[in-house]
């Protein structure tokens, strides 16, 4: 005998089609229009899972998003998603569902042994028990506890679902599609507003979907038909508003074909019509499969045509639940009502009598009986009778869904008239309607929705008056009668009385929390875990608050609520990440020469967002071997390297020279046209910002280069200075980093290479002296030749518009082929500059001063420049500052590693040391490891022997502090 059965008629299911699905491997069938929950019930599957802590048998409590028990892992393989309420899953053909937290099955769960230990597993048990006997005991116990208690497990494989994010803008966002939401949307839509309605269900209508009234259904379908005809109205289903943020930004997560779509909505106005959630009653063994919310029983009956087999008991403290009793009776179910109130309304009594429903006033439920399925209930009070039943429908009243309206920080307030919390208010452009604000009748909801819709229109500045909404053709609303028992719950009764079904928190746990001093609802939550987990206490919070308030002798309004935060319902992290995963985790930045590198044996390395040419296979199969050969090529012949990643900035205007003169520490006002100059700029706090060369192209135009790493920051800095500080200067700046590509042609034969490549240009020492710059026309474009050296060798940079960079690169390679020219990569480029002692991004660590880097002497004494004043403050002049040094390894057999910590020879190798290695390389010239580093006191210690420690590998290497200029200190080579 099963507890539920599919009715032969009625409901919103499509009886012409059958859908096959599996539950724990068993093949079952349902109908389009079913949810997984209704289909399981129709198949007699009342027991669908086990509880979190005690592994007690559980069935569905609700028919909606508040479901605490019926959680499943849906899907297979990398599309499996755990902890999904079966109440929110529309049935589809081939759907695969698995139960959770039960082994081997919910019907026979070995972990139910936990129930034996239940008496000691109460609130605070973990905190008290597993804290000892040793300091790290918790770390030992935790894996076992997590294994024994828990929910579904996420698969370790990459998620196979697709997640998208889409930005949207609307005049009016309506949250919820019940009568209030539909009325609000139609009101706004009729006035021509752009309306977006988000409904978490797969169908539109909210509470209307659980009704059988023809008048209500006609109103719903007519309203939807008109909404669908309005071009500026968008209706989303399976779309849950998850969070509301500043500026009326709302995130709405929608289930779509291959995964989820996260709508990030900016709404000019928001209508909250999220409805309300029924709360359960607390009594002994109130968690048996078959104990369900009254609204859920009605929804399964009316919407899905799934009814209790024969007998139902309804326990209520309010009038609203009677409609469930009446619907059950009309479907042929024998119904008994256990009424907590002394005297229910006369019209309800009359209607119940007409349907043969027995009512026990002042009764309620004392206990339930059964194992994996409810068999009977015992009433409390004078009518202490036991009644056999298939289902116990419970209704403890209705809680307005105040979650979203609270996200902005407005706390809910208690409304004694409905014995529930309602929104404490709304932000200026927000409006509430219907169940969300504690108005439960059909007429009231529609009126509310219309009023809220008009308010939203006004908030959007839309003055047009829409046609009035026709009310549904049903009788006037009756008052919502509710009387909440104030008797303290008797925790001495046998059996467990659950308040929070999902986390197995009982009434006794709340009493224990009170006894131990956790009186605040926030403390209660943390101590008992009540209101945590996937349902976030949607069915438990208000009952718990009322209980704690009772124990404290205060009202619920004084106890208050915990803080509501996004997301409203469980949201997979993938939905937040969207497409920013894998290949799209971050944008890849490619040099104009990228395609050439890729075709010609280059191995790339990530450098920030850039993909840079690291080394080439002509030089060797590994970076360790290749860069040495590439360095030798540059030191002895000629090589070509991609330097397109350098920041490049166009500085133009009558005051460009004056501007640069203020930005750089050294003089630029008198830089001649056709010359470049190395410059350093400081932040206004005197710390080095960046360095680079800037060339004067004309009287009013300069071509600045920056380090790759600091290009964006320097550009922003220049714009800031011009727009905020020196608005009187007539200067425009523009980034040319993308516009111009660049290559370094380096080595003793580099001049010969350019002569071969550009036979028309004079690149002699006189025609293009050191730091000389000239633009030449070549190949239909402009080529900029700059005699600059990063390697310390005779070298040039050749820049041109990026469209032509590959062609120009190939031209130089071909023209200079007789010289043996070949490309060299970033590893060699960096190593060459270390040998020369050029500082780069690794040394410029945003903490060093000019003097730290040995560049103090290049700063102008007379002229003002940014950072000048603060550069000379006391701390910046301290003799023990970490300053640039060269380092030579003294132990030939040992490898020297970057980031090694530096210690004086007699220091204990411990702590932060006296500095660190910033850059390191094998020197082909010196035949040993060399490095640049920052060391306390810098070159005052030149000649001293120190120690480089690399604790991660327990390595130490003896070093000597030397000048950072390892080669060609006189500059003979670059001036050749």
């Amino acid at each position, binding site marked *: 005998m099963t507890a539920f059965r599919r009715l032969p008629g009625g409901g919103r299911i499509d009886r012409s089609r059958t859908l096959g699905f599996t539950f724990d491997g068993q093949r079952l069938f349902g109908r389009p229009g079913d949810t997984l929950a209704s289909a399981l019930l129709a198949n007699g599957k009342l027991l669908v899972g086990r509880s979190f802590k005690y592994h007690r048998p559980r069935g569905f409590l609700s028919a909606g998003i508040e479901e605490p028990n019926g959680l499943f892992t849906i899907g297979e393989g990398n599309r499996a998603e755990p902890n999904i309420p079966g109440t929110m899953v529309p049935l589809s053909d081939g759907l695969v569902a698995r139960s959770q937290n039960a082994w081997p099955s919910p019907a026979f769960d070995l972990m139910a042994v936990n129930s034996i230990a239940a008496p000691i597993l109460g609130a605070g048990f973990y905190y008290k028990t597993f804290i000892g006997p040793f300091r790290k005991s918790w770390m030992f116990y935790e894996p076992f506890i997590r294994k024994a208690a828990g929910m579904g497990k996420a698969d370790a494989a990459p998620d196979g679902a*697709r997640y998208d994010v889409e930005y949207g803008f609307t005049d009016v966002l309506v949250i919820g599609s019940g009568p209030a939401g539909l009325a609000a949307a139609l009101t706004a839509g009729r006035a021509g507003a752009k309306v977006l309605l988000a409904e978490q269900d797969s169908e539109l209508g909210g509470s209307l979907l659980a009704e059988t009234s023809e008048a209500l259904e006609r109103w719903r379908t007519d309203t939807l038909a008109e909404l669908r005809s309005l071009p500026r109205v968008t209706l989303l289903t399976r779309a849950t508003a998850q969070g509301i943020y500043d500026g009326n930004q709302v995130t709405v997560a929608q289930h779509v074909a291959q995964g989820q*779509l996260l709508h990030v909505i900016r709404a000019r106005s928001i209508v909250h019509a999220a409805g309300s959630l029924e709360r359960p009653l607390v009594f002994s063994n109130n968690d048996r499969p078959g104990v369900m919310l009254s609204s859920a029983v009605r929804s399964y009956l009316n919407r899905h045509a799934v009814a209790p087999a024969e007998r139902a008991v309804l326990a209520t403290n309010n009038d609203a639940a009677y409609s469930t009793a009446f619907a059950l009776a009309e479907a042929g179910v024998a119904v008994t009502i256990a009424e907590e109130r002394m005297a229910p309304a006369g019209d309800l009594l009359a209607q119940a009598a007409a349907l043969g429903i027995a009512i026990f006033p002042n009764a309620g439920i004392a206990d339930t009986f059964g194992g994996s399925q409810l068999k009977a209930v015992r009433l409390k009070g004078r009518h202490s009778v036991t009644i056999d039943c298939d289902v116990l429908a419970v209704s403890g009243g209705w809680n307005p869904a105040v979650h979203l309206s609270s996200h902005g920080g407005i706390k809910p307030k208690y409304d004694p008239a409905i014995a529930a919390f309602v929104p404490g208010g709304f932000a200026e452009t927000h409006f509430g309607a219907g169940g969300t604000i504690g108005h439960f009748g059909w007429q009231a909801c529609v009126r509310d929705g219309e009023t809220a819709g008009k308010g939203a229109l006004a908030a959007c500045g839309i003055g047009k008056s829409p046609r009035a909404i026709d009310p549904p053709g049903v009788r006037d609303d009756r008052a919502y009668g509710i009387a909440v028992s104030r008797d303290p719950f008797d925790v001495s009764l046998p059996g467990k009385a659950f308040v929070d079904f999902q986390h197995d928190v009982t009434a006794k746990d709340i009493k224990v929390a009170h006894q131990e001093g956790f009186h605040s609802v926030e403390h209660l939550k943390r101590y008992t875990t009540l209101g945590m987990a996937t349902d976030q206490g949607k069915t438990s919070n208000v009952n718990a608050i009322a209980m704690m308030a009772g124990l404290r002798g205060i009202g619920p309004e004084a106890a208050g609520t915990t803080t509501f935060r996004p997301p409203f319902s469980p949201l997979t992290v993938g939905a937040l990440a969207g497409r920013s995963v894998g290949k799209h985790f971050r944008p890849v930045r490619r040099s104009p020469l990228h395609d050439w590198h890729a075709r010609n044996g280059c191995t790339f390395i990530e450098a920030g967002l850039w993909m840079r040419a690291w080394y080439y296979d002509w030089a060797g199969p590994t970076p360790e071997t290749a860069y040495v050969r590439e360095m030798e090529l540059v030191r002895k012949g000629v090589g070509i390297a991609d330097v397109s990643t350098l920041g490049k900035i166009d500085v133009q205007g009558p005051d460009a020279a004056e501007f640069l003169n203020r930005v750089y520490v050294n003089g630029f006002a008198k830089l001649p046209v056709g010359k470049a100059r190395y410059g350093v700029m400081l932040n206004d706090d005197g710390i080095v910002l960046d360095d680079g060369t800037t060339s004067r192209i004309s009287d009013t135009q300069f071509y600045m280069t920056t380090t790759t790493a600091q290009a964006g920051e320097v550009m922003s800095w220049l714009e800031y200075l011009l727009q905020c500080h020196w608005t009187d200067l007539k200067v*425009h700046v523009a980034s040319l980093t993308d516009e111009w590509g660049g290559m370094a042609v380096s080595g003793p034969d580099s001049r010969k290479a350019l002569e071969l490549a550009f036979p028309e240009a004079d690149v002699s020492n006189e025609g293009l002296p050191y730091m000389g710059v000239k633009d030449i026309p070549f190949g239909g474009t402009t080529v900029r030749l700059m005699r600059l050296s990063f390697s310390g060798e005779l070298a040039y940079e050749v820049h041109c518009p990026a469209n032509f960079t590959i062609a120009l690169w190939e031209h130089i390679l071909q023209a200079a082929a007789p010289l043996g020219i070949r490309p060299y990569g970033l590893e060699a480029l960096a190593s060459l500059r270390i040998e020369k002692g050029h500082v780069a991004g690794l040394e410029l660590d945003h903490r060093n001063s000019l003097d730290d880097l040995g560049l103090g002497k290049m700063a102008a004494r007379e002229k003002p420049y940014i950072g000048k004043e603060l550069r000379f403050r006391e701390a910046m002049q301290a003799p023990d500052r970490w300053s640039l040094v060269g380092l030579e390894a003294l132990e030939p057999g040992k490898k020297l590693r970057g980031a090694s910590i530096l210690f004086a020879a007699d220091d204990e190798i411990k702590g932060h040391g006296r500095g660190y290695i910033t850059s390191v390389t094998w020197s082909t010239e010196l035949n040993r490891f060399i490095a640049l580093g920052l060391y306390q006191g810098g070159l005052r210690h030149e000649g001293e022997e120190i120690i480089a420690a690399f604790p991660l590998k327990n390595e130490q290497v003896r070093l000597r502090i030397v000048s950072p200029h390892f080669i060609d200190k006189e500059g003979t080579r670059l001036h050749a």
Partner: protein
Amino acid sequence: MLDARSPLASAYSFEAKDIAIREEGGFTLTQVAGFGKGFEKSLAEAVGKLPARIGVAQANDAFTVLRIAPQQFWCVGEAAPAGLSGECLITPLSSGRCRIRVEGAHARRTLARGSAIDFDRSAFKPGQFVMTGIHHTPVLIHCVDAEVFHVYAMRTFALAVWEWLVDAAEGLVAGN
């Protein structure tokens, strides 16, 4: 002559129902800046009418002119504007930007999956442009026609932006 090469040379045009994404090269982009009204007068003589405000593109005979910032314009045409006075500060940017054409009924939603801009027809109309971001990189999006958009992406990020847009379009086509 040196051959020009686009960073999207290795990318294939994407075409599906209601959406097409392809590179639309062959343009010359020149940034012209200056101070005061003199340079604007000179620029107008060279390229035609200037747009009155930022965010509006003025389509003239040979040039589409976009006012991108105070005292800064982009001039897009087959060639660079000629005959500009010395008051005009000229910065060629043709190599620095790629122009990606996004076209079709899904174009607006494709763009909305990368950029927090209101792409509704009533809010973003032909002739308007926005400077925004796609995939964390700066782009300028010009609404050329009701269902046709030009996305000017930075050259070095162009392939990343392209792949992002194509992926977004694929999601839409798949019903996501």
